[in-house]
């Protein structure tokens, strides 16, 4: 992706380190400690997982195209829903954001590389093994994990296929990778900022990632703990979640969602950062309310630790618990509202242009807000009893994850791709990608709201006849959205190989350290720290 030529023009006499380009062949990728190489590998890995997880989603949608059982067995359907969720959350969205962090954070804070480059290499190379382990279960006796991506015990400990052990070790490895990545981000941001780059001068993408990294360090160990308890229940005769042995099945849900709710913010906060970079550029105005943006992100992160039980309103919680988690959850709408307000106000009376990154960002603001509103509906405990475990929930979290996290990633790739590879992407193709994704995604997920409100449960391979029309619309939308991503793959490859050369600033209104270095970004940047005024 980056050029071999070292265009670094800083000379320093006392530097014994010889500047060099990337190594040749496969060794470059196996042993690299360069943040740009590792960032690219994360992004490609994430895209591969996105396609694999997407094929699973299309299998699900093909089966649900009409009522009755057509294509796959219910057991396999359950494996598909489980694996789709796990692959998309841990394999597509999280590594994509770590890839963006690798590429961008050093360039944004004026650092020569990530703080811990060797560990960086490790964090990435664990991932293919973790997901190889997880995906290999599809080909084993008993099949892949089939208990839903939330792997509620005792379902996942008592009735699961034997492959649950592979799943547990896979999750352990992803956890280790995420934690190492997070430590790296924190060390880079706290210790390697260029002189003059105070915390409150950092670009918002860096801020959101710093807070995300803290969330990762806080909750990934809890996830590791809960799967370890599962492992002991399955193999070592403990009864953490087995009521017959004195354990507590609800305990699993409490511990899982103590991890799970911060996890959903881990998947969205970096996307907040991305659109906070892009919207000012294409509005040609500075971001409205920078300070309030930082405080809003921090508040969202802190609140995420005290709302977990809103995922489990129907387990038979005491009333006082329902009320606490209901109000705490609704409180999150306040900082989120601040952010949406700031994005809109940034655009207000700006001289707007709508290149592809901006299109994805504007769609992000609108559609994420829709997802936020359905989240508020789910937060209201008494009405959640109707929505719980229906397609309304599926609609909600796909509205925050697809046009939220995924559109954020698309926007980021379009925005920084010219900086990464030195060529402009094809704007017409980019717009096609956006509009097809936009239409496909809304067709796929909007009808799910109606299905859920009408009572269609989630995670079922067959459904009552009255749900047929909306389901077929939804499936058509899903296939449009899925096929469109091949266009994106073509566009990215085409951009890497050829295209109009990009200027250093790339975008007229772009500001920040990464736009001061040449395009494509040299293999080594900021070996001498820049001065930030």
């Amino acid at each position, binding site marked *: 992706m980056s050029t071999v030529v070292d265009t670094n023009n800083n000379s320093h006499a006392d530097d014994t380190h010889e500047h060099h380009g990337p190594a040749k062949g496969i060794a470059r990728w196996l042993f690299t400690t360069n943040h740009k190489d590792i960032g690219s590998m994360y992004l490609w890995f994430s895209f591969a997982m996105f396609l694999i997880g997407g094929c699973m989603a299309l299998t699900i949608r093909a089966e649900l195209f009409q009522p009755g059982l057509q294509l796959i067995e219910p057991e396999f359907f359950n494996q598909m829903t489980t694996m789709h969720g796990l692959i998309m959350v841990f394999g597509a969205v999280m590594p994509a954001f770590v890839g963006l962090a690798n590429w961008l954070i050093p360039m944004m804070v004026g650092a020569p590389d990530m703080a811990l480059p060797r560990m960086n290499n490790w964090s990435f190379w664990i991932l293919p093994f973790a997901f190889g382990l997880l995906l290999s279960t599809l080909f084993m006796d008993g099949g892949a994990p089939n208990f839903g991506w939330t792997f509620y015990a005792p379902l996942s400990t008592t009735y699961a296929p034997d492959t649950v052990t592979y799943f547990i070790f896979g999750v352990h490895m992803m956890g280790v990778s995420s934690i190492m990545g997070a430590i790296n981000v*924190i060390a880079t941001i706290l*210790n390697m900022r260029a002189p003059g780059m105070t915390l409150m001068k950092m670009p918002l993408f860096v801020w959101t990632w710093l807070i995300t990294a803290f969330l990762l*360090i806080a909750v990934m*160990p809890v996830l590791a703990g809960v799967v370890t308890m599962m492992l002991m229940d399955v193999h070592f005769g403990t009864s*953490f979640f087995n009521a*017959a042995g004195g354990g507590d099945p609800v305990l699993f849900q409490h511990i899982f969602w103590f991890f799970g709710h911060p996890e959903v913010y881990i998947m969205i906060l970096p996307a907040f950062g991305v659109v906070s970079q892009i919207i000012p550029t294409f509005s040609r105005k500075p971001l409205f309310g920078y300070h309030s943006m930082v405080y809003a992100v921090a508040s969202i992160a802190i609140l995420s630790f005290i709302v977990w039980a809103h995922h489990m309103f129907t387990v038979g919680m*005491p009333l006082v618990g329902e009320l606490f988690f209901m109000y705490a959850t609704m409180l999150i709408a306040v900082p989120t509202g601040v952010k949406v307000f700031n994005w809109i106000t940034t655009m207000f009376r700006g001289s707007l242009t709508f290149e592809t990154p901006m299109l994805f960002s504007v769609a992000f603001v609108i559609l994420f807000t829709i997802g936020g509103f359905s989240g508020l509906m789910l937060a209201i405990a008494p009405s959640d009893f109707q929505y719980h475990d229906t397609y309304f929930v599926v609609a909600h979290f796909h509205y925050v994850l697809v046009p939220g996290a995924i559109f954020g990633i698309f926007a980021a790739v379009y925005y920084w791709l010219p900086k990464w590879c030195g060529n402009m992407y094809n704007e017409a193709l980019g717009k096609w990608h956006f509009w097809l994704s936009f239409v496909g995604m809304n067709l796929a997920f909007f009808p799910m709201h109606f299905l859920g409100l009408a009572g269609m449960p989630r995670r079922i391979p067959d459904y009552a006849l009255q749900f047929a029309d909306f389901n077929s619309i939804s499936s058509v939308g899903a296939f449009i959205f899925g096929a469109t991503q091949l266009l994106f793959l073509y566009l990215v490859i085409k951009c890497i190989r050829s295209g109009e050369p990009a200027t250093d600033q790339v975008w007229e209104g772009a500001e920040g350290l990464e736009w001061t270095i040449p395009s494509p970004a040299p293999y080594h940047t900021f070996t001498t720290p820049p001065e930030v005024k």
Partner: protein
Amino acid sequence: MSARENPHRKTIIKSLAAVVAMFAFGFALVPLYDVFCELTGINGKTSGRYELGDTQLEVDETREVRVQFVTQNNENMPWEFRPTVAEIKVHPGELVQVDFFARNPTTKAMVAQAVPSLSPSQGIDYFHKTECFCFTQQRLEAKEEVLMPLIFVVDKALPADLKVLTLSYTLFDQVAAVAQQEEESLTLVAR
């Protein structure tokens, strides 16, 4: 790492300490949830044996509370298990006995444990059991049946708005657990 001081050492050590602490915290949550629920009384778990004082047995004839009994068997527990009455009306302060019927229909002796839960949870502090089959494990020989007593008193301080209390028992098969315990004690004592 190089011989000179690594500038990131402190950050790494602090981060790793946080990781270890949070891993431990995940396990600490197991007892912490119980402690939290016990302190706040929001879990529906009733407390253990209650010792009556002399003065507490004055019966409040002015009001009546309906007490309902619900039983269920966990998973594949084969016993017949039901209350002899589904619901009784009691006066607060009145000492009442209710029997529960249990029968082991299998051809082997079995050990069971009943776990109680009271709803609504606001009533937990006011429902006192002076005797309950749920305090101990119950052993029944093959085909044996038994009436198991529960003696309780509803506290006179029960809030006026609580007019119905539901006591639920879930019966757990303890055969495997008992066998495991015996095995452990055997290896310890080496009889």
